[in-house]
């Protein structure tokens, strides 16, 4: 933080001549581009305009600018996408404009909602909860045997790095085309990351703290619920947060291998076959919102449950 502050001071004290030169260079670039192709000039002007605004805003970061700068950046990308698609008249089949996607979302609300319920609520969420419960239960069961722990940790770490999503065709074959097979894929995908994190977390309490529990003559279960599980929560939530995205990916990809005629993966596949790219993008937008919301939800629960942890105390 200190070093950053000095950097800003140095930069502002260096005088304005250097930034003037830079401004001139950018203006020249925009003019040259505009002379060659006015559309490219316009796009560059939008980009550098927004970037300049962000540069000015981020000289002295405050609460407001910390929020505003990334929003401006994201909006700039959206505007550039919209304007370039319109100006260059890009084919709908290759890339629809954001406004087309928005229209698609507005008009196909019920379909998108049905797909969302099928894939996210029935497939991803149920699998996520079952998988997490199984993993945490297994971790607690394994916890009493250091031998099993030493064996399970490397194996679990190894399996967590494997392309587990490849088991989707097998699980679809076993559990049918319904949401059950998608939930099964999600269970397999989230199991090992959460298991590994929980096993590591259960070891996180200090020897001193465990000794204190012993002086209280606490039973194994009292020690587990009063000390070791709470101490493991930051680790468990780490695994849970990583797995939110995995769960959505698993549920959507599993639908590529067979599904009823509803679901986000099914819709992406069939809309794509019919070259309705706006619908594909609408599903992607829903998936992105669902993924962020799921992550946000888990992060919110984490903040409520691990308020005592140093990583949470800095926040308000």
């Amino acid at each position, binding site marked *: 933080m200190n070093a950053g502050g000095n950097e800003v001071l140095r930069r502002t004290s260096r005088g304005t001549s250097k930034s003037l030169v830079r401004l001139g260079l950018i203006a020249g670039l925009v003019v040259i581009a505009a002379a060659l192709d006015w559309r490219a000039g316009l796009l560059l002007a939008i980009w550098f305009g927004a970037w300049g605004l962000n540069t000015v805003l981020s000289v002295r970061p405050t609460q407001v600018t910390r929020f505003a700068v990334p929003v401006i950046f994201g909006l700039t990308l959206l505007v550039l996408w919209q304007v370039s698609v319109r100006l260059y008249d890009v084919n709908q089949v290759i890339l629809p404009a954001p406004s087309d996607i928005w229209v698609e979302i507005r008009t196909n609300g019920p379909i998108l909602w049905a797909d969302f319920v099928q894939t996210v609520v029935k497939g991803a969420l149920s699998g996520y909860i079952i998988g997490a419960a199984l993993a945490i239960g297994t971790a607690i069961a394994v916890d009493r045997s250091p031998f099993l*722990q030493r064996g399970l940790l490397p194996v679990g770490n190894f399996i967590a790095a494997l392309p587990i999503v490849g088991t989707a065709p097998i699980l679809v074959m076993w559990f049918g085309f319904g949401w059950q097979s998608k939930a099964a894929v999600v269970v397999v995908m989230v199991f090992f990351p959460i298991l590994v994190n929980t096993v590591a977390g259960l070891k996180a309490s200090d020897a001193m703290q465990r000794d204190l529990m012993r002086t209280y003559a606490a039973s194994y279960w009292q020690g587990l619920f009063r000390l070791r599980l709470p101490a493991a929560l930051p680790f468990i939530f780490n695994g849970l947060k990583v797995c939110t995205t995995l769960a959505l990916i698993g549920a959507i990809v599993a639908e590529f291998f067979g599904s009823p005629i509803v679901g986000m993966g099914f819709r992406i596949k069939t809309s794509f076959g019919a070259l309705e790219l706006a619908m594909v993008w609408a599903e992607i937008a829903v998936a992105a919102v669902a993924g962020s919301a799921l992550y946000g939800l888990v992060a919110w629960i984490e903040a409520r449950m691990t308020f005592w942890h140093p990583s949470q105390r800095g926040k308000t």
Partner: protein
Amino acid sequence: MTALTNPAPRRTLLAHLFASLRGALPVVVVVAALLGLWLAAVAPMNFRLALDAAMRGGEDVTPATPDEQGETGLVRLMIDNPGVIPAAYAFERPRLPRPQDVVVEMYENTIGLARGCEFTGWGAGREHWTGLSEGCLRVVNNRRSLLFHAWQTLAPTLLGFAIGTGLGILLAVGIVHNRTMDLSVMPWAIASQTIPILAIAPMVIVVLNAVGVQGLLPKSLISSYLSFFPVVVGMVKGLRSPRGMELDLMRTYSASGAQVFWKLRLPASLPYLFASLKIGIAAALVGTIVAELPTGARFGLGARLLSGSYYGQTVQIWAALLMAALCAAVLVWLIGAVERRVLDRMGLAR
């Protein structure tokens, strides 16, 4: 030279071997337990199929009609018809193959493909560069070869990984040195991790094909995207890891910005970089495999998975899966080996 200056390398090697064996024992036990679980699950998984086949073959089974069998629980069926259990293990197209079936399938589709393989000696011609006869090359050339398909998947993975890592490092350097970039891009880099972009990988491939981008690049693009963000996030963390004290020392040396970067920030970031590289390469491989799934890709492990699922060839699916797992393991291990070597030489080894 080193052997002369170090008189007892042999004992340390033995001790090291012994220690690693003892460390490996729990892992071996866990793996064996998992394999045992798999083997035990084969019978119940295939039992109904086997029972059906036995009934058609004219054998006496206890609930005589298929309807009654459907109503009877699996455990009851297995207790009443113990004679069918061996058939469940030897089933032709099982729902769950035995582990050894998968290993045999892997062997047949790799080394087993060689025909009349012998050493011919190196000759002048281009076809003699391996020194092996034509039949040997079937191991890697044949369309059935898993190694051939694995390479079709690995090549775009590696290319994409290289692109994604390169761009990721560049962006991280930009983020650390430019406050505007930090504030604008960093929140999006983190947020993008929560978006299941991998699910649309197949579509990206087809669109790129339509635009005219073909060959390795479309698949590489997916894997580069997936390895890009872990590298950015890890590298930013790493480049910022030098503490104020260390930065102050550089200032007392009156080091320039470039010197601070090359001599302090970059070396300090390497442990973080390697940790992200391991995540990145695994993600890149998954990306390529998923990208191959429903796009009608003919080659690659993903294509093997899909065709296996279309034709009910479970053994083929399992073999492709195992091959993918092997690839992932080798890639992660390779990066781990480079990491150990580099961090050892830098004195940063943990």
